[in-house]
């Protein structure tokens, strides 16, 4: 009797339980599918960009594109001005940004009190999110207007301003990963603080610093906006004269992709493919390194 009384509600509970369970399964499955779809959607643009740029750019990529200066209507011309410009402005920008970024990170990771470290970190994070065109305008007002000349140096400085916070934040992260026991051991052996930072902390954090620097370089290499007002772009293959306008691969793509001339559009695709290759190689190399470390 009592068993039956108890069994009835439990039967009903089991029935509704089964229904709830099924509904939960359905909701779970569909949400999981949606989430999986979203995850694929995130990867899709990369695949699409790779595919379209490769499909259009592969045939346009040739030795002429890299070695020849541009010509009127694109006939027989190339993108040597852009290749040479990028290969000069980006390294100079790295030369400015990496020391500043690394030293800044050393200061906030090793020496600053927590309050000033927080302020600097906040500033760097805001700078990372700053629209790059504003950085171009800013550099224009103090490196182009006073000298009355668009110049490659201003372009490098604009790129460096973009790179500095990236280098600084990644370096700081990697310095925080250096175990404190290493610092203490070094100091206990009587090594001065500066030497500890240089030979122990920086050395241990070096892979992380390299990763950050390479990512910053890849980012700067693809920037167009900060160069519009600074390096301006140039149809001349400018080797070494940072006082004059310089071209870069993104500027070359920007200018030539909108020309109503097929040959120039083709060269823009070729330049896009070249830029993609360089940036991809840097990114993959960096990620492969860090994967290797994690696994090994």
């Amino acid at each position, binding site marked *: 009797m009592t068993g039956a009384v108890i069994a009835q509600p439990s039967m009903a509970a089991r029935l509704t339980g089964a229904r709830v369970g099924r509904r939960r399964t359905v909701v779970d499955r569909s949400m999981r599918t949606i989430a999986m779809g979203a995850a694929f959607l995130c990867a899709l643009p990369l695949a699409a960009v790779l595919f379209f740029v490769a499909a259009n750019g592969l045939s346009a990529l040739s030795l002429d594109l890299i070695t020849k200066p541009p010509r009127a209507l694109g006939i027989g011309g190339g993108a040597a001005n852009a290749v040479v410009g990028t290969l000069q402005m980006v390294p100079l920008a790295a030369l400015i940004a990496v020391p500043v970024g690394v030293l800044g990170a050393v200061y906030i990771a090793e020496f600053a009190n927590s309050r000033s470290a927080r302020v600097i970190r906040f500033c760097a994070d805001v700078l990372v999110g700053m629209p790059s065109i504003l950085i171009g305008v800013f550099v224009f007002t103090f490196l182009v207007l006073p000298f009355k000349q*668009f110049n490659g140096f201003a372009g490098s400085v604009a790129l460096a301003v973009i790179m500095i916070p990236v280098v600084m934040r990644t370096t700081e992260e990697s310095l925080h990963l250096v175990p404190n026991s290493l610092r203490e051991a070094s100091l206990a052996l009587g090594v001065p603080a500066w030497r500890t930072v240089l030979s122990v902390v920086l050395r241990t954090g070096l892979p992380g610093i390299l990763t950050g620097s390479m990512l910053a370089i890849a980012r700067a290499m693809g920037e167009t906006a900060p160069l519009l007002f600074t390096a301006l772009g140039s149809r001349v293959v400018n080797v070494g004269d940072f006082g004059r306008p310089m071209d870069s691969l993104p500027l070359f793509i920007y200018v030539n992709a909108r020309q109503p001339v097929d040959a120039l559009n083709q060269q823009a695709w070729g330049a896009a493919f070249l830029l993609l290759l360089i940036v991809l190689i840097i990114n993959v190399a960096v990620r492969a390194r860090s994967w290797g470390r994690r696994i090994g």
Partner: protein
Amino acid sequence: MTNRASRLASLAFGAIVVIAGCTSPGATTGPTTGGQASGPPASGGMSQPQVPSGNVTLSGAGATFPALLYQVWIEKFGEAHSNVTVDYQAIGSGGGIKAITQQTVDFGASDAAMKDEEIAALPAGTKILHVPTALGAVVVIFNLAGADGSAIKKLNLDGDTIAGVFLGKITTWNDPAIAALNADVASNLPATPIKVIHRSDGSGTTNAFTTYLATVSSEWKDSVGAGKEVNWPTGDGAPGNDGVSGGVKTADGRIGYVELQYAVVSGLSSAAVKNANGKFVAGSSAGVTAAAEGAVDAFPDDFRAAPIINGPGDDTYPIAAYTYLLLYQDQTDATKGQALTAFLHWALTDGQSEEKAIGYAPLPAPIQQKALEELHRITTGGSPIWPM
């Protein structure tokens, strides 16, 4: 830096010269223009300005319309004088005037003469010379598939209709106003909506086109007006002549306005426009030359000519304009000044013969002569670079 800047300035002068050569309406006139203009001007002193011997780089920026001509000029001039490098960046007429005002270039380029207030904005003591280099026609380009699916290549338009389209009042291609002008293809005009593409940057092409619209339509004059930049009642903006022709090319039903040259290289059709004599004339360097020759007497002494709108003559294309190189009258760097003067001289003479082949109109002979005389006014440190 200043040395470099002055060298750049002379480059800019050079570019201006090149541009001037481009504009001449020689295509139709034949003997008076272009080809024959290559001899040095009959003046005393040096028969032609000397090219400096050292390496010089001139940098200039501005109008997109003459960019193709300048690129060709720069290549040809560079073949003859490999020590002179001219770097021209096509950033738009507004950008060219801005750059020369801020003194960030050796020379600027614009399809619209500088306005009084733009001249007033120049740094104190700076004088700018306008050197015309070529003439251009502003043509109305379109990309339209007919009702039967085949591309429509020829259309006649008049001022009222063009104004109606750009005012947003005529919104489909089979509008009665368009059909009435095109009896032969009227049945093939589709109901496709008209999409206007206009310039997004300050542009001499826009200046010429809106001057035309303000001339033919009082409604346009009152509600929009004329200038390098206006508040467009309808349509999307695109940067540069290249941007507009590229934009029109991408989709069916689009209409825009560009320099003739850009219609030619992009392969887009352009409309025949009704001129002052009631004839429908397609944009061509011949039509521009006819317009320029009709307006030679009206060419002002300060060279700042207004666009040539609705000039007389059966063959005259109704929307034409000079394009200019803008240079500092006094060159701070003597070497750059020399190179720029020599480049301009070459452009106004030998360069003129390059124009027709790539779809530009060389300068009419009297204007070419005036432009060459203007080169005598370029100085460095107060003394002329190319004395009379």
